[in-house]
């Protein structure tokens, strides 16, 4: 590809933004470039990236999933309870994938087959799952995880966190899925023109089901990573996580109107969100300010997206 074309791509803009922010944060804070801080960013990024992969597919179909924060919470609780009861890790992995997949499947059925708008359905499941967590935990915390399982959250391999390696494998796998599997291609088709897709022999209900199912499974897996990393699970675990994920996806150039988006863009969007959140913590910006910045970023990228679509 020619250089001028690369510059015009949205990915290039995000990369430039990441570098600029990186320079600003390393000049204004002492710790930003330290090995500890960079590792810390990566620990947090892994969950963001993995969940954002699912969200990317959902948003490409023209949908949204605001329930993944709750799904992560639910799976974190399940993981915490099982691990403190010394259940084998393999079973725990199956269990978190199962509960995540269950919430995703419920969303998929309601949206894909019931035809209910995605925002309404996932708002519903988001609150239902959260209410369920309150009922189960009743304000308790789960702590005292066996040290042997925490490697999933904090272990390292070849200098990088294991969770980041998992994220990298999933990034590659889903990039490949979107480009080379018929179902992956159909995700773009129904986001672009659901009527034409149906007439071209695509089953939109099935594809919609698949994307919410995947989004649920991936968020479920992040619940395990979260539990293993922090060692603590509480009722509000994962609350607001969906906003970070949506911000990452939208910043990464995926169109909220559907039909356009890449896994690579989402990776960069997630890195951008991760760096901003980390930088603000280092700069002692209060939590409220963090919400303000994320909210603004989402709005700005949506506006850019609309302008870009008009250009077509």
């Amino acid at each position, binding site marked *: 590809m020619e250089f001028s074309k690369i510059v015009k791509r949205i990915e290039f803009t995000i990369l430039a933004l990441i570098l600029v922010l990186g320079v600003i944060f390393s000049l204004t804070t002492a710790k930003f470039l330290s090995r500890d801080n960079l590792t810390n960013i990566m620990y947090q990024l892994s969950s963001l990236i993995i969940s954002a992969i699912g969200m990317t597919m959902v948003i490409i179909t023209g949908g949204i999933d605001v329930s993944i924060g709750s799904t992560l919470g639910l799976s974190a609780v399940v993981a915490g309870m099982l691990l403190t009861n010394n259940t084998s890790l393999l079973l725990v992995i199956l269990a978190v994938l199962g509960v995540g997949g269950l919430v995703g499947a419920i969303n998929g059925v309601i949206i894909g087959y019931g035809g209910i708008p995605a925002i309404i359905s996932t708002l519903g499941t988001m609150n239902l799952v959260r209410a369920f967590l309150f009922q189960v935990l009743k304000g308790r915390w789960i702590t005292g995880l066996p040290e042997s399982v925490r490697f999933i959250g904090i272990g390292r391999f070849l200098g990088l966190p294991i969770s980041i390696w998992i994220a990298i494998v999933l990034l590659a796998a889903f990039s*490949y899925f979107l480009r*080379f*599997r*018929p179902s992956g*291609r*159909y995700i*773009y*088709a129904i986001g*672009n*023109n659901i*009527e*034409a*897709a*149906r*007439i*071209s*022999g*695509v*089953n939109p209900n099935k594809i919609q089901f698949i994307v919410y199912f995947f989004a649920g499974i991936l968020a479920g897996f992040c619940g395990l990573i979260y539990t293993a990393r922090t060692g603590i699970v509480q009722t509000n675990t994962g609350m607001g996580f969906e906003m970070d994920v949506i911000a990452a996806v939208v910043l990464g150039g995926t169109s909220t109107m559907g*039909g*356009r988006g890449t896994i690579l863009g989402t990776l960069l969007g997630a890195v951008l969100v991760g760096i901003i959140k980390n930088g603000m913590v280092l700069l002692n910006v209060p939590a409220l300010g963090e919400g303000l910045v994320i909210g603004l970023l989402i709005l700005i990228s949506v506006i850019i997206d609309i302008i870009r679509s008009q250009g*077509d």
Partner: protein
Amino acid sequence: MENILECKDIVKSFGGVQALKKVAFSLRQGEVHALVGENGAGKSTLIKIISGALKLDRGEIFYLGKRIDISSPRVAQEIGISTVYQDPMVYPELSVLENIFLGREILDKRGNIDWKKEEERAKELFASLEISPSFLNEPIGKLTLGLQQLALIAKALVYESRVIIFDEPTAILTEHETERLFNIISRLKERNVSIIYISHRLEEIFTIADYVTVLRDGEVVGNFPISEITRDKIVELMAGRLLTEEIEHIEVKRENPILSVKNLTKKGRFYGISFDAYPGEILCFYGLVGSGRSDVAQALFGIQRYDSGEIIYQGNRLAISSPDEAMDLNIAYLPEDRKAQGLFLPLSVAYNISISILKNILKLFSFVDVEKEREVSQRYVSELSIKAPSIDTKVYSLSGGTQQKVVLAKWLAVNPKLLILDEPTHGIDVATKSEVHQIISKLARQGVSVIVISSEIPEVIKLADRVIVMHEGRITGVFKNREITQENLIRAATGERVSPGLD
């Protein structure tokens, strides 16, 4: 009588197609002026320009002697030009009263809506039209289409319209409602309101119109006082001379039908449809828009359900519920609206062509064989001479005709044995149109059974080995060889059962 509205040299093009070529049209005060022509003759384009829904490219419009620029439907309504469309455009959950006054509410001193005054005014209006105002406070969506239409006429009077355009108003009405509408139109005439009346039912025109203008291929081919013209003369003017260029027709052996449709019925759409289609035959469906042709085609392709009847395909009962099942049986359907139903505009030519066959070009672990995908796309691009810079070009940047060929390529990739084409040359330039006709002819010669739905008589006459004509959901004519004439087609399409082939 003086002219209230005068259009001079109106020119309008869509892409490369000239929809109106220097059209002149004048409307006198207090007259009912019928506008007739085949589908695509330019009637809708003309009234859309007059009602502000479309902008003209060149030409002038004079209203009450002054030159005006009708830039939007709102402007048209404000100056007194209202349109009553075929499907009443209403807010179904709002009451009749709210619908009538929406956008022109009567306000009291404090700026709130004065419901009492609105109701009084509405009652007056309905009384002047001699209609009982009993349904004013009901949600308009609960009323019959006929009553909804009346409410819209009342709305036009709220705006003190001096010109009211009726676009096929009787298509949705019962006989009784039609009679009532004609009464109202006479009353409007007495109030010196001018009316532009579009209808495909020629008998009606002779009942209520004072004047008739005939359009063909975007040109006015005649205007007459109704007393000086006959029905046959209008039909002749509408059809005109036909395209002389021919395609090669081969002798079709009508022995083993690939498709037999028996008594297919879907309430409100089509009734008792029976016909056979044969390999190597081009079978055309002619009829007016809304006559149910597309609905039948979509039922064959699994997009629409039907209530009763039977479809036999290649000797077996066809039981499909979705397009992908139809495609597995080598049935393909090119939809009418290529932008809304055919294309993924922001995506590439290759993507658009290959979407329907991805399942068939898988390699190891069921991943798409991208090499093969490009090869197939490339093959169809050269075979149909699709004029795109490359197969990676985004489809939205191509011309209408080229886009249509891309959609066609997608369906040819399925290797159809039964190919249904819904308005395959709608809105594309003449040269590409002729190419598409050649492609269709070639496919038939290769033994494909081709069904072409078309609203253009010249196209039907050029392509068809056999024509089925539909009118309001029913088959009103079947014609072969020499019976395929413009007169026969128009007669059957307007509801006369003239066919020699009907039993």
